[in-house]
């Protein structure tokens, strides 16, 4: 492989990991402005790597897949944001049809999202140390410890996502490329079908969350209204 291509891939991986980690901060550490949600985050990273369609697919697939998985107490669902960003980052540098590389990248990215959530739990348990040290410092009359604790907390969440994404992207892109080299045309066709059907898994997950009579009625109404509108537009155009 050309050395310049390796450098370009590494640069891209660092760039995606950095932006992904910044967006990941939005999920827990800072703000919760929805920037870290796959619907926005994956699209932004898609634009960043010059593949907006890949970003849209990752957004559509992963925003819905864990829609009902809310962080309750000590439970943390797999990180949809890291999964979606890793999918885009893993698939972008590989030279193959969009559908095939997106699906293979997603298959590798889901365990990365699970690991990201586990590391969030680990950080939360490590943050107990920050709490105790800050408490002692504050009671000793050192108020600056409070700001320092917040900076440390933010830094932990940032570096967790940055390092995880960097390792996953550097190692994973090679795996995606190798896997795609060995696929037969029939398997590529199969991956195309997975690419097409993937949002449906998320739709089912979301529907399960809203499974109450009034919501199901609203769901049916929404589907019927949109289908009617699409039919109307296609008749007139």
């Amino acid at each position, binding site marked *: 492989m050309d050395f310049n291509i390796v450098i370009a891939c590494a640069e891209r991986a660092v760039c995606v990991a950095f932006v992904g980690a910044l967006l990941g901060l939005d999920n827990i550490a800072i703000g919760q*402005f929805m920037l870290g949600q796959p619907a926005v985050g994956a699209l932004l990273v898609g634009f960043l790597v010059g593949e907006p369609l890949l970003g849209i697919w990752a957004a559509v697939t992963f925003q819905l897949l864990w829609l009902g998985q809310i962080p309750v107490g000590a439970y943390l669902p797999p990180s949809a944001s890291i999964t979606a960003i890793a999918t885009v980052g893993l698939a972008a540098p590989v030279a193959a049809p969009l559908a095939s590389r997106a699906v293979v990248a997603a298959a590798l990215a889901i365990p990365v999202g699970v690991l990201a959530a586990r590391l969030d739990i680990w950080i939360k348990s490590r943050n107990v140390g920050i709490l105790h040290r800050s408490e002692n410092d504050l009671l000793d009359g050192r108020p600056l410890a409070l700001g320092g604790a917040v900076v440390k907390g933010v830094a932990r969440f940032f570096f967790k996502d940055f390092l995880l994404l960097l390792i996953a992207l550097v190692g994973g892109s090679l795996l995606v490329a190798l896997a795609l080299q060995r696929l037969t045309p029939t398997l590529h066709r199969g991956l195309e079908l997975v690419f097409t059907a993937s949002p449906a898994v998320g*739709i089912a997950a979301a529907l399960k969350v809203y499974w109450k009579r009034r919501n199901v009625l609203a769901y049916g109404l929404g589907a019927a209204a949109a289908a009617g509108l699409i039919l109307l537009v296609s008749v007139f155009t």
Partner: protein
Amino acid sequence: MPRRIRAETVFRSLFIQATNNFERMLSLGFLFALWPVIKRRYPEPEARKEAIIRHLSFFNTQPYLANCILGVVANVELRGGENVNADVANIKKAMMGAFGALGDDLFWTGLMPASALVALVLYGIFPGYAFVGAVVALVIYNSFQFWVRVRFFNVGLRLGPRITTYLKLLRLPRLALVVKVAAAFLLGTFTAVMVWRAAETGPFGAAGGLAVAGAAFLSFVLQSIGIRPGVCWYLVGALAIGLVIVVG
């Protein structure tokens, strides 16, 4: 309280989860947000130390609605009195659980998915203008969550524990139900758009549309028997690949 201190408190509340931990959850973040008030109210070290201990007890709630508690607690701190310790503890205890549940309903399974679905529907219809969908979703979501953060802090600060009357008037649990119905409606819209997209522009034509509908049904059944969404994605993927291999 001067506007600058109010603004600083609201700004600091953005970091309320930065030191989230399993022992006392958001307590350190809460103290960080309230620090401008504490610093101003208790210039003398002993009283400040007492306030620090008071606010480092267990605290956990939904991060946006935490601002309401911040406002009420700031009001109690500024009024002072002999029972500040007990008052603050009681207020936090009474409000954090209720706000946690309400916030999950209103934001995490209500407004957040609804806003995201607005973006997803727009991506499906106008993939070439996807950034517009993202901007619309961000505006819908953040305008409401910022309003909640700023307004609830200010009202809490003004009314103190009497804020419950104001909150009752807002009928937030009902609003959460309405937002969820809207999200379900958008999910239906998104389903139709995805089926149309797959049938119209996908490589499988009408069969692609059928595949989306079939995969949604199968996934729903699988998830209803307890299979997790992530695992379900792999299973449906394997089935789709198998189907192509068999059919050819």
